[in-house]
């Protein structure tokens, strides 16, 4: 038994083919063609271009590890000091603490060493800055489209908590500022006092690379000094 289609049905089918199937098919085939043929060429070009237009850290591809023990850090250290022998200095790429800011709903693992890998898994500390409790500056960064996205809503007076295996540290926000990424006056890592500096790319909704950073400065409020 033959199935006959009306002219209207044939017309609709042709329109479906023309407006939906063929464009989708072309898109899929075209993308596959571009991917297969041009990826070996485009990838190194993009990598080279990043050297000139990006100030990103060298992606050394290190593996991330963790020494953070949530149970160990669950109770606040009420003492004023903690012996240095109780502190484990993390190696580069190690999750050693947790950073939280309740006022803006930030709760992120904190890594030592601000590689691309670490920034993709949490917030990351510049390895040329010190750990909480050591009385020296702490510089921490995070991506503006993930862990530090809500940093844009932080206010002076808000509290930042860094929970480590050896103590819980609290800092109070004193200032926020927008500065260029190469503005060295935006931070002072030679300071002989403990203060916390957070930063992320600015503006928060930018689609491409940006030369500006949003800085948050906070003074230490509580937490044991490492002696």
């Amino acid at each position: 038994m033959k199935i006959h289609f009306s002219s209207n049905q044939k017309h609709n089918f042709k329109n479906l083919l023309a407006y939906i199937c063929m464009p989708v098919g072309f898109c899929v085939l075209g993308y596959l063609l571009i991917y297969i043929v041009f990826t070996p060429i485009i990838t190194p070009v993009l990598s080279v271009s990043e050297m000139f237009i990006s100030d990103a850290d060298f992606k050394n591809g290190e593996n991330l590890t963790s020494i953070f023990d949530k149970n160990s850090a669950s109770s606040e250290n009420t003492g004023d000091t903690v012996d240095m022998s109780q502190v484990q200095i993390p190696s580069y790429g190690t999750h050693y603490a947790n950073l939280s800011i309740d006022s803006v709903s930030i709760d992120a693992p904190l890594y030592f060493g601000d590689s691309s890998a670490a920034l993709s898994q949490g917030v990351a500390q510049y390895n040329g800055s010190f750990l909480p409790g050591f009385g020296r500056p702490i510089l921490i960064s995070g991506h503006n489209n993930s862990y530090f996205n809500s940093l844009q809503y932080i206010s002076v007076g808000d509290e930042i908590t860094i929970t480590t295996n050896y103590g819980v540290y609290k800092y109070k926000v004193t200032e926020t500022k927008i500065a260029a990424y190469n503005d060295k006056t935006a931070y002072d890592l030679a300071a002989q006092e403990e203060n916390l500096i957070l930063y992320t790319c600015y503006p928060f909704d930018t689609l491409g690379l940006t030369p500006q950073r949003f800085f948050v400065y906070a003074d230490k409020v509580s937490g044991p000094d490492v002696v």
Partner: protein
Amino acid sequence: MIKRIAAIIMSVLMISAVAFSASAASGINTDEQRLIDAYKSANANGYYFDEYTINQIEIYFMRDGVDITADQADQVIAYLNEAVSYFAGTGATSLQSLSTEQKQHLLEIVRNGAAVVGLTVNYDAANKLFQVYTADGELVYSSAVVIKTTGADYTPAIITFAVVLMIACAAVVAAKKKGLMQR
């Protein structure tokens, strides 16, 4: 530029003198402090250590198991002086102005110091980075910039979408020409 390059080289020599282990903190002993003071005071003759370099060195000196001896401190200071003297003697104003042989010689001093305690010095020419690793591959020093890129770059995705859209439009045009689209 010349100051920063010299600082990087000297900091590598500093780290080369100690063995590292990732364990509890132990503080900085007197010989380590002597070393820190030595390269802090090496700011004369136009060379200096910036705080980013000094901090990385201090942090690693704090590790338990990193206990430099007096003899090691003397050796590192000797390498430090040799590197500074050699660089100053070239009369160069930047690392780039050094000849290939001069660069090789300077790097040799650095690598010799690192080899004493089994450390590896890596210079990534593409990214212009000095990095020092332990025998286990642990990064102990990097000359990378302080402030990193912490934003998303959607440029590749936008380009890809634009290309796909163009292909879709081309498909529509082709379909019209083939007479597939009828009023």
